[in-house]
């Protein structure tokens, strides 16, 4: 008891920071490996973003590269590739925003509203399965299922008397196919947070709504949806940056030169400039394009955050 008292006192007494650190060095030692990791693998590369302002020499490094200011950005913004990649990035994000994002909310509602426990559980388990399947395998499924010769989708079309379509080379099919693929991969995983939010709604609200004469749909509309609105807003804000930035690993598996007009995003373009440019890697330009994208994503998150703060009082910061 006396010792415990002493412990409390020690915390209240103002001590010099250095003595506090020295007395508790083990806690700082535990922090150290992670801290070093962040400095070496997260922050040091950020310093490397300066490549965007250099005419980077792949063999000589920064020492033999010329500082060229905003020239890389000027080259990108004035090239014909800019409008294509910019529009595609925004459009692919918009498709995700209006289809993939609401789908996981709908799925959560279906899972929680289904009156059969068996169906509810089966739906949740099965829709979560694709989370465990890699982008490579899912892209492989898409490519093989849509094959005009042996793909199951075209086989079904032929059985229904329709002509086979070579989906992967038609630009107009790219966004729908990509969106369906992402929907399949992520809906179950993303729905879990909404299912948790629906479970967390106070049951007395449902009772009150029932007393007021609300039916099943009325309760869904007036209790469930308002109840999960804060979660929806938070997830929307967390995902807007992701919608813009991620996906290039998946897109480069699916797109082909014939579909670049609808599929080539800022990130996939930067990737090609650096790693798939027929031996003429342009790291400086690729770095500038990548930085441009990162800044756009950050601005979108900030704008969405401001809008959400004003409209729904939910915000990230």
């Amino acid at each position, binding site marked *: 008891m006396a010792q415990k008292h002493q*412990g409390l006192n020690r915390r209240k007494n103002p001590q010099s920071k250095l003595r506090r650190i020295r007395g508790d060095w083990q806690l700082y030692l535990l922090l150290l*490996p992670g801290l070093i990791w962040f400095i070496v693998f997260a922050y*040091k590369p950020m310093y490397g973003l300066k490549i965007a302002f250099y005419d980077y020499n792949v063999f000589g490094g920064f020492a033999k590269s010329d500082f060229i200011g905003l020239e890389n950005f000027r080259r990108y913004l004035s090239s014909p590739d800019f409008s294509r990649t910019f529009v595609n990035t925004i459009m692919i994000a918009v498709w995700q925003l209006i289809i993939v994002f609401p789908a996981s909310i709908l799925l959560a509602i279906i899972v929680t509203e289904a009156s059969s426990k068996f169906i509810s559980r089966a739906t949740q388990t*099965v829709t979560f399965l694709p989370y465990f399947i890699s982008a490579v395998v899912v892209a492989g499924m898409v490519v093989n299922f849509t094959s005009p010769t042996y793909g199951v989708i075209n086989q079904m079309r032929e059985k229904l008397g329709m002509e086979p379509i070579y989906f992967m080379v038609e630009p107009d099919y790219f966004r729908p196919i990509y969106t369906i693929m992402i929907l399949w991969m992520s809906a179950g995983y993303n729905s879990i947070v909404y299912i948790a*939010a629906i479970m967390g709604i106070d049951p007395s609200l449902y009772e009150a709504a*029932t007393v007021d004469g609300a039916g099943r749909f009325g309760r869904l509309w007036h209790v469930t949806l308002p109840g999960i609105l804060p979660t929806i807003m938070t997830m929307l804000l967390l995902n807007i940056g992701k919608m813009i930035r991620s996906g290039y690993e998946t897109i480069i598996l699916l797109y082909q030169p014939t579909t670049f007009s609808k599929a080539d995003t800022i990130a996939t373009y930067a990737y090609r400039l650096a790693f798939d440019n027929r031996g003429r890697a342009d790291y400086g330009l690729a770095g500038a394009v990548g930085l441009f994208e990162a800044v756009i994503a950050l601005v979108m998150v900030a704008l969405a955050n401001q809008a959400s703060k004003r409209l729904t009082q939910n915000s990230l910061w």
Partner: protein
Amino acid sequence: MKDLEKRKKKIEHAKSGMVQSTGEKVYDLCINIIAVLVTLITFYPIYYILIASFSRPLGVDNGDVIFTMVEPTVEAYKRAFRLPNLWISYGNTFFYAVFGVAMNMILTTTMAFSLSRKRLVGRKFFTLMVVFTMWFNAGLIPTYLNFSQLHMLDTRAAIIVGFGISAYNLIIMKSFFESIPEEMEEAATVDGASSFRTFFQIFIPMSKPALATVVMFYLVNRWNGYFWPMTLLRDDMKMPLQVLLKKLIVDQVANETEAAIVTSASTWSPTTRIYALMMIAIVPMLVIYPVLQKYFKAGMTLGAVKG
């Protein structure tokens, strides 16, 4: 899952005073039918891979395999395992998964524990340092050049150490450690336990749900990741399974030439081998899912809600 059922019972109870109207019965029926349809459609692609991988190749090519197998055979699996480098890349994936996740957990739990202690000087700054990387990161080219500058290109260390922490998982772990009552640590301190001992003997054993969740997140990423190994590694002997799969089932480099050879024989086509390879890649993850499922969901909502 259990919570969901309990909660449903509560709602059922709330409604028990009333008789279900016809409209409500129709609503119930519709929701159940939609749920069944969603489940079947979601499951079909996995089911198709399964039946196609065990069917006679020409049955798949001709479109006879749609809902059922045709002349079951394991030929496709035999041929898949005979592929050069399949076992090597499978072994590599296993190596990266085991050592990679171990590295992830060491770096993540130690840092998360430290950041979860309010007495840590500079706690806010260090936490901000972690969270900032969730909103802004250097991106593809600077990350690649960083590995190049560290002379880590084409090394296994780049894969294992270079992707040692995900800020998101770190925050999940930190939130969980913060939710453990402070009295637990105070009692240990009174008993003379150091920070190391408090961490290893009290916090780690008490955090099983969160640990299982974070292990799962890391494991799925390690097992399924293809982009960075493809970009950073050169040597085929170091490549993980996903990079080999990309060549075989997405780019299909090997199949084109093989298809030309086999058309004359007409008994074999690479199609079913593609589906067999898919099964070989996904089965370990699908087996692990039910094992960790109950922990996984509990931990996941924790991380997601706290962001």
